[in-house]
């Protein structure tokens, strides 16, 4: 397992990935991995140039799931786009809803009642737990574990999806946040069920870790693989667990102080080496921190309305202006940029997709590795094609 060679040449400013000179004779093998591939997390294609098993060039090809989400926004109203945001990162629909609601609330200066903020935090952290569990499950499956960790992760995910279904009406496409709060209040029975699920989560993470963290095969295959240097990560706009795995302390919950995250005590795990193992460990530790936040939020949940009484729902026409709102989604920084010219639809609606921008450095991380490692590195970026292609 080799890292990038010393004889690579790096252009100052990192405007392009390093060039690897293939050693040995023979020609390069051009292979297209995808778009139909068991481990590309959806319809994604990578054009690889291989020197034997070593990757010499990697060009990602996108667009196989481009559903012109941003163009639909120019004819649908602001509220009409809320169900479409569910389908961006389809594993974490509630955090997508929150990011969009935050951007619109910034655009019009809308306040959110306290109980709604707490419910947003609870649902977002539950989403984060099930997303990280699924991401690790898929990563280990691509390592060859044939589905067992994925089954454990999905077992937990089903419990959380049951909670979402009883609260919002749908397992995956929740469409729950509104501009000025949440759509529906939580009931006491739902809170009891959530407390039970949250009480069972630490044991689940312990079980997961007992299977995986000290596992020889995992450590041998992931340590030292796909190293991402912190300065390149910052320059390439990488955010989320991938950035923190490289050691850069930037968590938007702590930086932007959005919502009421200031009231909760939680730590931000950082990695030392920036390899696949560090990203895996950051996700496990973030799951534990999320469980801590959930316990605190469930204890402190106040009463009150869940929707601002003065929020305008019918005839919602924001004044001309623009706003950029972002949150720490489980995959990275999810931002929405809205330009309004006074109409009922946004003039320009842009999604800042964390998965696409995290993929900017895919080539740098994969050069010099074997094809089998490319699958792992790609899995550790944790992308969802609905967000990459929108």
């Amino acid at each position, binding site marked *: 397992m080799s890292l990038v060679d010393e004889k690579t040449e790096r252009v100052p400013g990192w405007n392009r990935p390093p060039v690897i000179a293939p050693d040995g004779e023979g020609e390069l093998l051009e292979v297209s991995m995808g778009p139909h591939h068991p481990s590309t997390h959806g319809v994604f294609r990578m054009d690889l140039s291989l020197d034997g098993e070593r990757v010499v060039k990697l060009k990602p090809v996108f667009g196989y799931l481009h559903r012109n989400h941003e163009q639909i926004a120019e004819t649908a109203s602001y509220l009409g786009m809320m169900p479409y945001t569910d*389908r961006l990162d389809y594993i974490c629909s509630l955090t997508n809803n929150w990011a969009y609601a935050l951007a619109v609330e910034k655009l019009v200066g809308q306040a959110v009642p306290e109980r709604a903020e707490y419910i947003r935090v609870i649902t977002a952290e539950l989403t984060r737990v099930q997303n990280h569990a699924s991401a690790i499950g898929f990563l280990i499956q691509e390592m060859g574990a044939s589905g067992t960790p994925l089954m454990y992760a999905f077992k937990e995910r089903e419990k959380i999806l049951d909670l979402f279904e009883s609260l919002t009406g749908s397992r*995956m496409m929740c469409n729950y946040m509104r501009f000025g709060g949440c759509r529906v209040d939580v009931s006491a029975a739902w809170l009891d069920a959530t407390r039970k699920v949250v009480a069972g989560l630490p044991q689940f993470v312990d079980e997961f870790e007992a299977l995986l963290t000290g596992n020889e095969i995992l450590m041998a295959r992931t340590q030292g693989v796909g190293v991402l240097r912190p300065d390149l990560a910052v320059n390439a706009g990488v955010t989320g667990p991938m950035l923190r795995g490289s050691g850069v302390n930037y968590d938007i919950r702590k930086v932007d102080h959005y919502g009421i995250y200031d009231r909760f005590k939680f730590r931000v795990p950082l990695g030392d080496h920036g390899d696949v193992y560090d990203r895996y460990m950051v996700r496990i530790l973030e799951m534990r921190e999320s469980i801590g936040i959930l316990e605190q939020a469930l204890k402190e949940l106040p009463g009150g309305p869940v929707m601002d009484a003065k929020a305008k729902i019918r005839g919602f026409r924001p004044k001309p202006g623009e706003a950029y709102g972002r949150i720490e989604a489980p995959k990275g920084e999810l931002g929405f940029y809205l330009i309004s010219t006074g109409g009922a639809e946004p003039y320009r609606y842009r999604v800042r997709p964390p998965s696409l921008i995290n993929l900017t450095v895919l080539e740098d991380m994969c050069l010099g590795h074997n094809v089998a490692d490319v699958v792992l590195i790609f899995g550790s970026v944790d992308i969802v094609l609905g967000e990459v292609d929108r």
Partner: protein
Amino acid sequence: MAVEQELKIELGKQGVFVTTIEELYNWGRRNSVWPMQFGLACCAIEMIATTMARYDLARFGAEVFRPSPRQADLMIISGTVTKKMAPQVVRLYNQMAEPKYVIAMGACAISGGPFKQGYNVLKGIDRYIPVDVHIPGCPPRPEALLQAFITLQKKIDEQSLTGENRPRHLDAEAQGEFPVPEQGEHDLVPPSNPGVWPVQIK
């Protein structure tokens, strides 16, 4: 010549089992339909959830999801088919060996779904390949996918081995491969396959 149900039961009590070759043939086929691992978008996550421990799809015979089209019987189109992806979908369908079936899972695969007004969205995979079962929903629940699977199994049961309605793999003249669309300058060329679309309801 089919045997009456009551006679079958009476004979069965005596330890004599009566059947027809057709029933046996279809029984074997419908209880071992192996899907192809083909998830496009959000519905794929529900498809994966259907194969997981809670809504186990394996108990209906879909034991393994084969990544290679040559070894699969069923293609579950789960998710939006975009015009960029459509030629690949048709190619994969052509590469599957007969008998092959298609389930269009979710609103996007049936007609373009919520993304219908798109310049890159194919308004239903019906336009290029024949579909056996359509499941509405966005995304359809795992139970709905199980229902679709059972519907497909019932459809296989009712296929007769001889005569006009025999399935494609027993008909030497039937068309099994469909033309792959090209990516033109503004749209796919041709925009639909006239042999398949619009769907004729028999």
